[in-house]
């Protein structure tokens, strides 16, 4: 079956070691994690892991269910692109000389909706928020100009669902069984 890009969102207790407990589930099946982000949520003590992986629909369901088996996992869900709002952030570094000597760079920054994040005596850092494709396009555009360093963050995503994390946690605390389907959140 054909692979698709899925965004996996996992709510967990904020405990050490959990990152490992989650990633070994992917390692076992030799699945490459394309991007990973760990963040706090609006609920104290609850973390959100956001991962991007390419899997078949069958594989993603199996993985989600195995992630749910981890005791400290509150919920795990998977989404296709149209089911989420998502962004990544990229940073691009140039030497101050390159930046000053190439007027096209400022043009590119404007056209791509990027901005100068920091200007130092010897270097400039540009920041761009967007989809992976957008940050990559800017990277390609910057490539000819002696780009010193480039980095891109993991994807962060929120689902289009109207449910609140807090309500979900409350439901878990009060019910004896986790009845939420893996696609529901």
């Amino acid at each position: 079956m054909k692979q698709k890009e899925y965004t996996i969102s996992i709510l967990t207790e904020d405990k050490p070691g959990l990152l490992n407990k989650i990633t070994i589930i992917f390692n076992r099946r030799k699945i490459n994690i394309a991007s990973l982000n760990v963040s706090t949520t609006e609920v104290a003590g609850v973390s959100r892991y956001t991962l991007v992986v390419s899997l078949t629909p069958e594989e993603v369901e199996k993985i989600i269910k195995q992630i749910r088996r981890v005791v400290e996992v509150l919920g795990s869900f998977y989404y296709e692109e149209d089911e989420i709002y998502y962004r990544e952030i990229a940073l691009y570094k140039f030497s101050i000389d390159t930046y000053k000597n190439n007027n096209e760079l400022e043009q590119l920054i404007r056209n791509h909706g990027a901005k100068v994040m920091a200007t130092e005596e010897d270097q400039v850092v540009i920041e761009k928020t967007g989809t992976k494709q957008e940050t990559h396009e800017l990277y390609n555009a910057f490539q000819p100009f002696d780009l010193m360093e480039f980095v891109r963050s993991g994807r962060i995503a929120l689902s289009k669902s109207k449910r609140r994390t807090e309500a979900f946690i409350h439901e878990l605390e009060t019910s004896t069984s986790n009845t939420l389907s893996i696609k529901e959140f």
Partner: protein
Amino acid sequence: MNTSTLELEEKEVNETEMITGAEAVLKCLVEEGIDTIFGYPGGAIMPVYDSLYGYADKINHILSRHEQGAIHAAQGYARASGRVGVCFATSGPGATNLITGIADAMIDSTPLVCITGQVASHLLGSDAFQETDVIGISMPVTKWNFQVTSAEEIPKAIAQAFYIAKSGRPGPALIDITKNAQQEELDFSYTRCHRVRSYHPYPEIKEESLRAAAKLINKAKKPYILFGQGVTLSGAEEELKNLIEKTGIPAASTLLGLSAFSTKHPLYVGYTGMHGNYGPNVKTNECDVLIAIGMRFDDRVTGDVNTYAAQAKVIHIELDLAEINKNIKVDVAINGDAKQALQALTQLVNQNSHEGWVEEFHECDRIEMEKTIKKSIDPEGAQITMAEVVHKLSVFTKGKSLIVTDVGQHQMMASRYYKFDEPKSHITSGGLGTMGFCLPAAIGAKIGAPERQVIGIVGDGGFQMTLQELGLIMQYNVGVKILILNNEFLGMVRQWQQLFFDRRYSFTEMQNPDFIKLTESYNIPALQVSDRSKLEDAFKSWLGTEGPCLLEVIVEKEENVFPMVPSGSCVSKIRLE
């Protein structure tokens, strides 16, 4: 939280007192009703062992001869008694020696709480003496693990470990306790854990799934039940029998399901899997509705998943959601506890019988008897066969013993020819296939079920992997009966070499020690038999001996286990000879 839970929890809160973390560990265990521990001391767990010295009246600690022995004994204990097995080991090698048993318990769903000592917390990560990252190492093979670095964390961690290990689909939990946490003092109180908000071990069974299953069952012409260990774990033996008897559906067992339903019942049609019976395998691919109960469609059961029961509607009753649609796509999933599910389902199904269909299984039995079984249990050769020994043992003990097996040919012969007639009577390393499991697990089983006759059946290879535990039998006079089926070969590997590798017997022949002398050196009576005519007498003196006793039977060197579904092939292509 409702008020009744609050009251319950308040009642269980003890008066507080200042004690060391080490003593807290033992108090927690006593609070959990634990009176038996298997373990091995060492530097990083010495404070706990020091406290244990004063707990001899409350806790019976069994000293193994190797940590692997301790954990397999804890597994045998847990599976025979239905309680949580508890195991102690020190840091570093002590902890890593537990890993095989932990992995075994994980895949065979055995409730264990393992407590390992760890170097002092200021030394963590510094490659200190006997430091190993046991949390990291055990993570993929534990249901839950947790590192305690201060004394006050101990009660909550242990309470959670017990709750998680035994609830839902059971499994091993590991608590790693740094030495300073064992030495520090804490203000002790204990509350048993009844709830972890991120963990929901008992899914609510959906009414519509039960109705859909009942509908399929009621209109089925050739329904077929396959049951696994989930039935035993949920204590649903009676409920299984009720469903089978009401619907008249023939039922077969997986390896780990054995003994959950009497082999003597007219609707019991045998055991399925790679070396299972002929009927249960071929009929899988002829039935119209397959009802799988508390089992996980292991590859040793399914063979080729693409052809497995492809013609049938599949109903899967399973507690662990991750097992549903993992290996076999199912039509109706009943996600919940087997006991509950079977009770509810039995209400919804019609009284029925399927005599013609059951007769088809019996026809298969006759073929298997003619082509396979007769030759195995009543062989023409002079040498005794493994199948013959197990068959005769089954008759001799009337199928009432608790059988613990190791891994390999003898294991398959035991599962084929021992006719179980009592629940909770079969303990083996099924999922992991751990050689060396039998001897310590049989010891643990006897300690966990002292009223039962416990017989460990083991090959000469597996016996030598953990034979040091004879020392445990000697020291605690554990009345377990051990049966070595000695063919001087790693028989199952040899069989595969014969069938699939052109008889190139690469490193499977074994030169063995004198098992009788060896056993006697531990002051355990032992006898050997190689003559068929003396086998029954040997059983009499072996099983008639008070306390432990070992019987070695010299068996045919190149006996094969048949039938056989070659690895990855279609179950209906089962080979009878």
